[in-house]
């Protein structure tokens, strides 16, 4: 399955290099949501993350000839996303910190009477994720959502494998803790 995706990506990248913008549209469609999730893990601000992602995809299109096929296209893309977000974060840090602290307050005031609908579940999961530390949220999403190996996460994030292992462990624990905090007993009905 992974090889098939890799081959498909390689073929698409070759087509983009030959000037096929339609192929690039397919690549953007394939990776936009996962890339946005990673960006949100870092900057904690969805509109800002989307703006960064717009620039990232333009940058990727312009520099696609520099991609050497030494790694998967997704690894290369996610690395650009992560670097761009950290660069932006340096400029935006004070503003983002305030916005992140508001999320839990909103969440805790919500009622927990009814069984949660799918959309509500998704909202609470995103809220819980927003409460994690940047490194933990990023590593969790890279590992579970983007299905990257530890080695690939190391390439993308620049963290050492041992730090990634620790972040994964803490991320799992804290995610569960945050979900329990937000949902109480409802956590058992989740999924």
């Amino acid at each position, binding site marked *: 399955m992974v090889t098939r995706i890799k081959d498909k990506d390689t073929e698409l990248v070759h087509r983009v290099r030959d000037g096929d913008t339609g192929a690039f549209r397919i690549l953007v469609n394939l990776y936009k949501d996962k890339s*946005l999730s990673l960006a949100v893990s870092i900057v904690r601000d969805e509109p800002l993350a989307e703006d960064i992602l717009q620039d990232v995809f333009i940058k990727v299109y312009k520099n696609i000839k520099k991609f050497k096929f030494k790694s998967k296209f997704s690894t290369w893309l996610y690395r650009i996303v992560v670097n761009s977000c950290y660069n932006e974060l340096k400029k935006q840090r004070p503003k983002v910190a305030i916005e992140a602290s508001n999320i839990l307050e909103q969440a805790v005031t919500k009622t927990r009477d009814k069984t949660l609908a799918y959309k509500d579940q998704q909202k609470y999961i995103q809220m819980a994720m927003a409460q994690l530390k940047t490194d933990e949220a990023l590593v969790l999403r890279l590992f579970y*959502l983007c299905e990257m190996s530890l080695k690939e996460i190391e390439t993308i994030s620049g963290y050492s494998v041992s730090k990634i292992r620790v972040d994964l462990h803490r991320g799992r624990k804290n995610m569960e803790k945050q979900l329990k905090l937000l949902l109480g007993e409802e956590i058992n009905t989740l999924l």
Partner: protein
Amino acid sequence: MKEEKLKKIVERSEVKTDRYFVDKVMANIENDAIQPKKVKFWSPFQIAIGFVLVAIVSGFLVYNISTAFLLNGNIAIPLVWSIFLLLGLKHLLFVHRWKLYLKANR
């Protein structure tokens, strides 16, 4: 929490982009391709720094080359150096004139 369940939970934390996101990206790429490449000029500060560097490097080179062939204190040393600097200055003025010309015709 079981690994499988956690995986599903994290998968559900995926944030979706705006429905017009792809169109916006493609429009930006097309706009970028249509726009002619802008000519980049150095700022006055960069020109000043460049001029000083050229003066130092050329002065050093001219002095060393000249002393290898001519006697110390020969008039050719400052003369050749001055020619180098004047050529550099002429080039900068040429660039500046082009900059003004392009601005006027934009």
